């Protein structure tokens, strides 16, 4: 049964991607991309990657779509007719594709337990991590503990992306009183529903943050979900009110605080005589130390991801509102 679901979902994914090529209406392209992300999330669930599915659904279908729509509002929604011939690209793609298909025949067959990928470090993660780290969710153990250094790097990359976006776009200055109509305040149903749903989204984000050790979830997902709550607020009630709730300056402080919190745990464990990010030294009992370490660094990740996603949205939305004034 699972194989048939896999077959059908992957075929739908391929068709969605194929349709993107021929569409000239970029609004439809972005919507199709949202569908594409949701389909990917379903496939990830079917392939046992529940944490990944969670992230894909909130990031790919949520934040990416909003950002792309914001860009379209500034750059126009139709693609112009392409005068170049598409023979050469098609040829390149066909040849490369054929070579890759030929190469897949050398891949280990899908789903077999004795494939090389399952022989190296994975058995240790699966057998030892519940004892060594003491968490049921192995993905969180590997993410935050075994590969904690890697995750610190990823958090820094996310942080630098925010710096890039802010320096390219910047936020709107606070001088104008001739603000255009901002938000969707005249839609009463939307306003009431948003008011009810925003606290629930934030509550859910907190649950995902702190329950990530035991079930699917963690700092990355929680940060994105919390940012989605504030993005919804900014969309419905307008950017000036959102700036009053969380100012861009505060977000910048938050984004750097998260990274520093993460790195600070590493430095603290060094001061206790361990290696960088060696959580065993954080408490007398190594397993308790792992718990503290993972809780704190996940919090750091959550804070940074939240602040970065919301800053990026603020930067794009400021541009859209500025172009509305002109």
């Amino acid at each position: 049964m699972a194989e048939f679901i896999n077959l059908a979902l992957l075929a739908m994914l391929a068709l969605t991607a194929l349709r993107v090529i021929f569409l000239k209406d970029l609004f439809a392209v972005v919507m199709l991309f949202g569908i594409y992300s949701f389909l990917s999330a379903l496939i990830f669930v079917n392939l046992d990657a529940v944490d990944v599915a969670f992230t894909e659904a909130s990031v790919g279908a949520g934040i990416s779509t909003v950002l792309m729509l914001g860009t379209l509002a500034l750059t126009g929604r139709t693609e112009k007719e392409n005068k170049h011939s598409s023979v050469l690209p098609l040829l390149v793609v066909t040849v490369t594709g054929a070579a890759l298909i030929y190469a897949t025949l050398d891949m280990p067959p899908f789903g077999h337990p004795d494939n090389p990928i399952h022989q190296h470090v994975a058995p240790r993660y699966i057998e030892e991590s519940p004892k060594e780290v003491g968490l049921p969710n192995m993905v969180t153990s590997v993410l935050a503990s075994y590969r904690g250094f890697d995750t610190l790097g990823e958090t820094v990359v996310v942080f630098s992306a925010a710096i890039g976006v802010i320096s390219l776009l910047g936020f709107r200055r606070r001088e104008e009183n001739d603000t255009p109509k901002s938000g969707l305040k005249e839609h009463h149903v939307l306003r009431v529903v948003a008011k009810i749903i925003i606290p629930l989204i934030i509550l859910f984000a907190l649950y995902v943050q702190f329950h990530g050790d035991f079930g699917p979830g963690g700092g990355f997902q929680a940060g994105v979900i919390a940012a989605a709550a504030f993005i919804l607020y900014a969309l419905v009630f307008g950017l000036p009110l959102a700036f009053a709730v969380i100012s861009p300056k505060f977000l910048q402080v938050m984004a750097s605080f998260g990274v520093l919190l993460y790195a600070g745990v590493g430095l603290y464990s060094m001061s206790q005589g361990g290696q960088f990010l060696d959580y065993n030294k954080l408490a007398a009992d190594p397993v308790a130390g792992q718990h503290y370490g993972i809780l704190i660094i996940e919090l750091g990740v959550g804070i940074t991801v939240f602040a970065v996603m919301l800053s990026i949205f603020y930067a794009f939305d400021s541009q859209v509102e500025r172009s509305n004034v002109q």
Partner: protein
Amino acid sequence: MNFINDYYNYWIVVFLMMTGFYIVISANNLVKKIVGLNIFQTSVFMLYISMGKISGGTAPIVAEGVTQYSNPLPHVLILTAIVVGVATTAVGLSLIVRIKRAYGTVEENEFENKDDAI
């Protein structure tokens, strides 16, 4: 049927990768290029997760009575890659916004000869 089942996931991955690649090299519109790049990226995610799957296994969260878990390592790599992916996509999109402001267009063939516009 067995042969198809063994390699089907990889073929779809190659198809998606080539679709994304085609969009990147043939599309004129920069936003569409970014969508193509994202499709390419997702195909890599799909490849990693497909390799981590074990038939008959479950999600790598300890539960009673389960002996076979799928490989958690690709999940970790891809989870962070997705978040980094959206952050870098945002940088790409903001570059497009600046290009639009400087050149007045986001169609690649239209700003070929506008090098001295700014």
